[in-house]
């Protein structure tokens, strides 16, 4: 076994480490199409080892301080794209105001990787196996996207367009994740794993009980998570919780069209989505 063959080694590239966002964006513009940004690097480095991506330049975002902050503003909770999974779990603000995300972050790879994995990187990979986007969609989060020329905002549900594909242009990066502040919040994130710890289905629920509003998102079934809310789940606040949960989980299982692969069949994923939906709703709304 040779350690110099591909898979163990990385292809050649030039490593760039900008210390400001402006610098990073101008590098991305200069090397448009030839560069990849590196956040935690966990997915990027694996894809490069497999030669699935072979960028000429790697622009490391790790030195950019402004991408690492969590701020409470009028718009809501603004999370820098380079905030790590561990920081999300330890942050008092995130635990209080974004409980769904704090819980999802505890699933973003193993504990050691969580020191390295970033929220921006996690959602950019656009793989059904990642947890960040499912949680963000349930919180109706917006993403701030920047290039050297432009700043734009998209809804988190507009990010993923296919397996491993996101809607960003080559010179754009996600700079912030903005979670609107909607008052009293309750949330949970459940993940159902097979024996080798690969996700069969995940369910995120974020509820604002004072506004009689909630969103439920089912992930791991397909590249793009499935979005539901109290309206599409025909939730009737006058009826008992158990009746609502029964109806909601039926609607979820009728709506989703999970992929079939070596991990699980479509039917099994459908069934687990239904079970997890009921469990998650029970956790948030109570009921026998």
């Amino acid at each position, binding site marked *: 076994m040779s*350690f110099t063959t591909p*898979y*163990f*080694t*990385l*292809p*050649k*590239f*030039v*490593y760039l*480490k900008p210390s400001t966002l402006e610098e990073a964006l101008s590098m991305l513009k200069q090397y448009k199409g030839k560069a990849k940004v590196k956040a935690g*690097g*966990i997915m990027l*480095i*694996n894809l490069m*080892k497999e030669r699935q991506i072979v960028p*000429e330049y*790697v622009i*490391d975002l*790790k030195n950019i301080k402004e991408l690492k902050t969590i701020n409470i503003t009028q718009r809501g909770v603004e999370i820098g794209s380079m905030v790590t999974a561990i920081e999300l779990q330890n942050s008092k603000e995130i635990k209080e105001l974004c409980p769904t995300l704090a819980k999802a972050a505890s699933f973003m*790879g*193993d*504990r*050691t*990787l969580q*020191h*390295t994995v970033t929220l921006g990187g996690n959602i950019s990979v656009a793989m059904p196996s990642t947890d960040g986007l499912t949680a963000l969609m349930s919180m109706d989060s917006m993403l701030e996207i920047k290039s050297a020329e432009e700043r734009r905002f998209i809804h988190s549900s507009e990010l993923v367009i296919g397996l491993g594909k996101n809607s960003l242009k080559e010179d754009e990066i996600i700079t912030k994740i903005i979670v609107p502040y909607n008052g009293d919040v309750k949330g949970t994130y459940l993940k159902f794993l097979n024996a080798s710890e690969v996700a069969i289905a995940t369910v995120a629920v974020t509820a604002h009980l004072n506004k009689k509003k909630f969103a439920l998102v089912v992930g791991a079934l397909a590249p793009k998570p499935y979005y539901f809310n109290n309206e599409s789940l025909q939730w009737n606040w006058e009826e008992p919780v158990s009746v609502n949960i029964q109806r909601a989980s039926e609607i979820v299982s009728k709506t989703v069209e999970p992929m079939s692969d070596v991990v699980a069949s479509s039917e099994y994923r459908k069934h687990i989505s239904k079970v997890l939906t009921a469990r998650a709703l029970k956790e948030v709304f109570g009921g026998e």
Partner: protein
Amino acid sequence: MGVNKLKTISLKVNGVTKEIAVEDNELLLNTLRDKLGITSVKAACWRGECGLCTVLLDGIPVKSCMTLSVEADGKEVITAEGLYSDERAKKLMESFVKHGALQCGFCTPAFVVTSHYVLSKNPEIDGEELKKELNGVICRCGTYYQIYDAVKDAEKYYKKEKSY
């Protein structure tokens, strides 16, 4: 493009600062094993799954097969070798022996480094929390329960007031 140029990085490894010439695409795992001969850092899966290549980078556990050497420039690396000089970590290692927390021993350096980090942060960790904290390292021989016992038993050495 200057792709083949070596860069000189400064790395404090187990207390000693070194200037090392590395390539941009070099993994910290290769620098540590091949250039510095630090063999407690094991190479196994090369894709971030097994955790056997774990080292402390500025005090935080990272998988060195997923870390670029250039990225570690100016930072401090601690491996199991470097923990000999830490009295508490020495006791932790003795605890691994006492509890038979290894069979082949291939995973031991990674578990020692990771549990040293965990106990330094919280020497009164709950059993379930401990399992979670150590879930980034795989023991193929399945000595997990002995490892948990060894780490729990070594907690006392990490508490501020030395009660042992």
